[in-house]
């Protein structure tokens, strides 16, 4: 018995073995073993020996080695472990089962459906799978069967529909799968990096922001492109690709084109984003240094104080959690919204400045072209005091120098806003100080303490943190939503009628309106803008309307409560007109831009021709009344 084996991948899952000597292909190692033992093969061997032709090596070890060298697919693994070296062994194992190289970690299912058939003397002689209606004699084969795909499919079909069964991957599917895995791994790594939160990992923070913009931009580019495949990222380098998930492509309407064109007009330029990014990260790092200095200056306080502070810290997370809608909670766990740039290390739980967070338009990715003011919030362990603020203002310039020696920043105190302002390169960063402790009731009564910063401002800063989290959980993933919010932000800045609508109320409005489409249909940007206008036009904001429940506050108060009846009236009036402008193809007036030229399409003539033909019949609904 001598032959070399080629493992070919042309048929089935690629587990065929070929006897080169006889030029016979066998499915599986058992078939091959049977062949080797068979008379035909022996005859050929004999013949070859007689004729003095070369015969491949005989020792089983050598055969195994030779096989390895020929093999080309990873599927060989199973064959090897199957023990071809001992061909006479288990000839009676079921053939199909062995092809289905099972994942090592698959748990066998449906033990109860496998019947043992016993011989008269009580010995188990074979097994019968009632689900798949097949039999095996060998316990190993039974094990294999229970892990096999076919069995699992039957089990899923007949017993437990929730069972996950891998789709037998075709070559193409497998590629897609691999691609998916690769992406998932990249994503994982990215989040891990973010979550890890090394203070030095400035790049990670940067990419977090870039991603937000890019996601939107990518979508825009893709939609603008007629190509059926998503193109490469428009930015050099590029963070790991996110959410490339397919959205159903629809032909782009004129409204969509106008909205996206306006969007790219108001979207900040690359340089703007970079310079904002720069000043923000410098400020963040400088604040971290200040925090370090403060922590060192006040070394070990009593253990009790530290303990007390840690508990308040955990309290704060729970209270803010309960306020935000429950749906957010799941997402919180994965650290996605955890954009706290923490100063804390394990050892010093008694730091005064615990961390800094981006809030407002910066954190939400709503910056528009020309925006120069961004906001940060510093979380303090205890009530932030004027003394503390002054101290930070004193230390910060040096720290900024240390972080970014080439840039010049000015630091001014802004006690009225409970914070300080870092300015430079025409940009200003408002850093507000707050603490979760300010939420507690005694903080309100204890307002006698002159030194503590304005409670109202501190609470506002806390609310800003919650708004940011809400935004990232609800609005970011919603199709067209962020684009429309930017467009509406632009509208609110441009049009005096819309300016009374606070940014937060506007974000809530847009998210609610866009997410409430019956049937969870994804709206294109044009449709989404129209729907927002429809909502306001239908009197959503008028007195007597339902109001905009604020999910980030207790008992969801109306987020737009500040609007006067006249402002509500004017907003509605304006939206009503805007809606009709959109309906009558004048969306460019709403967006404050020039009309785009109509795209050159072949079938355009066809359409207008039809319209003319029909217009005759249009008026003829005759009246009696």
């Amino acid at each position, binding site marked *: 018995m001598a032959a070399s084996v080629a493992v070919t991948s042309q048929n089935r899952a690629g587990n065929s073995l070929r006897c080169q000597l006889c030029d016979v292909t066998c499915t599986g190692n058992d078939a091959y073993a049977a062949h080797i033992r068979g008379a035909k093969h022996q005859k050929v061997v004999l013949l070859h020996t007689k004729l003095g032709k070369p015969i491949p090596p005989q020792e089983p070890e050598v055969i195994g080695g030779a096989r390895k060298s020929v093999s080309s697919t990873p599927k060989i693994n199973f064959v090897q472990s199957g023990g071809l070296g001992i061909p006479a062994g288990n000839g009676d194992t079921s053939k199909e089962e062995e092809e289905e190289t099972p994942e090592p970690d698959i748990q066998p299912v449906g033990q109860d459906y496998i019947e043992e058939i016993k011989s008269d003397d009580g010995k188990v002689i074979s097994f019968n799978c009632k689900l798949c209606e097949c039999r095996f004699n060998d316990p190993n084969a039974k094990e294999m069967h229970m892990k096999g795909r076919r069995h699992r499919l039957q089990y899923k079909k007949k017993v437990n529909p929730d069972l996950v069964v891998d789709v037998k991957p075709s070559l193409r599917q497998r590629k897609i799968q691999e691609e998916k895995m690769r992406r998932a791994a990249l994503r994982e790594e990215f989040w891990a990096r973010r979550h890890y939160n090394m203070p030095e990992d400035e790049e990670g923070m940067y990419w977090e922001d870039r991603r937000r913009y890019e996601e939107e931009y990518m979508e825009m580019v893709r939609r603008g492109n007629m190509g059926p495949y998503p193109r490469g990222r428009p930015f050099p380098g590029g963070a790991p690709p996110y959410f490339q998930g397919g959205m159903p492509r629809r032909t782009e309407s004129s409204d969509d084109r106008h909205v996206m064109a306006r969007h790219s007009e108001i979207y900040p330029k690359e340089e703007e984003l970079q310079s904002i990014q720069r000043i923000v990260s410098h400020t963040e790092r400088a604040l971290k240094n200040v925090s370090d200095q403060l922590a060192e200056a006040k070394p070990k306080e009593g253990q009790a104080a530290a303990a007390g502070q840690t508990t308040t810290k955990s309290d704060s997370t729970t209270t803010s959690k309960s306020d935000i809608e429950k749906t957010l909670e799941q997402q919180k766990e994965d650290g996605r919204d955890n954009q706290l740039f923490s100063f804390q290390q394990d050892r010093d739980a008694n730091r005064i400045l615990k961390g800094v967070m981006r809030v407002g338009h910066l954190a939400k990715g709503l910056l528009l072209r020309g925006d120069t003011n961004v906001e940060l919030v510093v979380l303090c362990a205890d009530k932030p005091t004027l003394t503390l603020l002054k101290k930070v203002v004193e230390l910060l310039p040096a720290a900024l120098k240390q972080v970014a020696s080439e840039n010049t920043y000015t630091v001014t105190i802004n006690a009225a806003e409970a914070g300080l302002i870092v300015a430079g390169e025409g940009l200003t960063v408002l850093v507000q100080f707050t603490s979760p402790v300010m939420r507690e009731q005694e903080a309100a009564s204890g307002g006698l303490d002159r030194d503590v910063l304005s409670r109202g401002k501190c609470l506002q800063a806390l609310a800003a943190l919650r708004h940011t989290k809400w935004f990232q959980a609800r609005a970011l993933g919603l199709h067209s939503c962020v684009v429309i919010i930017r467009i509406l932000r632009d*509208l609110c800045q441009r049009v005096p*009628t*819309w300016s009374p609508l606070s940014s937060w109320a506007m974000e809530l409005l847009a998210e*609610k*309106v866009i997410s*409430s489409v*019956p049937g969870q249909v994804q*709206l294109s940007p044009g*449709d989404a803008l*129209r*729907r927002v206008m*429809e*909502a306001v*036009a*239908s*009197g*959503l904001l*008028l*007195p*007597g309307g*339902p*109001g*905009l429940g604020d999910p980030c506050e207790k008992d969801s108060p*109306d987020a737009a*409560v500040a609007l006067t*009846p*006249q402002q509500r*009236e004017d907003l*509605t*009036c*304006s939206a*009503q*007109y*805007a*809606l*009709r*402008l959109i*309906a*009558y*193809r*004048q969306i*460019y*007036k*709403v967006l*404050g831009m*020039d*009309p785009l030229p109509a795209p050159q399409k072949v079938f355009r003539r*066809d*359409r207008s021709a*039809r*319209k003319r033909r029909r*217009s005759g*019949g*249009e*008026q003829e*609904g*005759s*009246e*009696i*009344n």
Partner: protein
Amino acid sequence: MARGGMRGRGGMNRGIGRPPYKVKMFLPRHPFDLALCESSFPRVKPAPDETAFTQALLKRNADLSPTPAEQTAILNLVTKIQTVLDNLVVAPGNFDACQLDEVRQVGSFKKGTMVTGHNVADIVVILKTLPTREAVEALGNKVKEDLKNLMKNEIVAKGEQLTHSTNERGIEISNSYACVRVMVTTLHHNIRKLDPEIHLDQKIMLSHLAAIRHSRWFEENAHHSSIKVLIRLLRDVRSRFDGFDPLTPWMLDLLAHFAIMHNPSRQALPLNVAFRRVFQLLSAGLFLPGSAGITDPCEGVSLRIHTAMTLEQQDVCCLTAQTLLRVLAHGGYKHILGLEGNSSIAKEMSVWDGVVVSPLDKAYENPPEKKDGDEEDEDMEGGGRREHGNAGDISRFFTSSTLS
């Protein structure tokens, strides 16, 4: 919208075999409708007290309902004419100018949505033969004769003298209290054979057939009394605000049905909510281009009812509703219902409790005038009117129900 969909009805001689790949996908969208997404907008402030508003609606409805005298008068007349026509169906005798297939009551009389002061009932007569003008004339004479026979034993009071006339729709029989219109049409398969030279107009014939479908649909789907009340109120509103003029009675029927019944619970909404919702829907652009609007349940092809209006009419209808919605929100319901004031509120600035409600301009026409509180001030000069799409999907089969 089935623009490229099947149009199977008789009489269509185009729209068949249009290459599907050339058709631009046009997916009208249903506009924002608060009633359908209340879960996203839970009420966070107390609902205003609407008892007075509801009372006003009910009072207005009572005022608008026909008086018992009117009801009796019309019922008498309809019964007599129905009897005469039924006889003609069963036993035409020597009347051979035309053959009657069926006689049906339609319109607001049948539906129970009549408004006082407009005491007109409609009856549709379906002929087996073709509706020539002569046949209609002869039918008119026959009915007149038979009615005279029928009433010869009655003492006819002065005001109950019947007058007969014929027009392009059929026959009108009236006395000073009531009027019955006998509208002639023909069997559906005859419609194609109509020749404008000798027969009554094809479109009118079709509209009469549609009227039968409408009243049947109404009977099956819209028998809820709130719907009838709302229809009556809307008809009254329509008659007072000329922006609503292009809305046909059939549109109002469907709109009222939609406003009351089309909600997640499928339970009839209270009258005050539904009345406001009509204005909310219209304001949100239910009847604007690009909106899914309301699909006519009585047409084989899916047809959006508002496409029977011209684009400009759609715009004016929408803006009137938008202005009235704001008036309503500021407490001006009495003016809308016609209990106070006049219809100038739709076109002139008005002040409600310190809030200035300004009317709106058309979006359809060339640059509208400058207007306070609107964002487009500086841009208005820019663009001329642009092409308007998607009003084209009107079917030749569309027949606005034109019944009282």
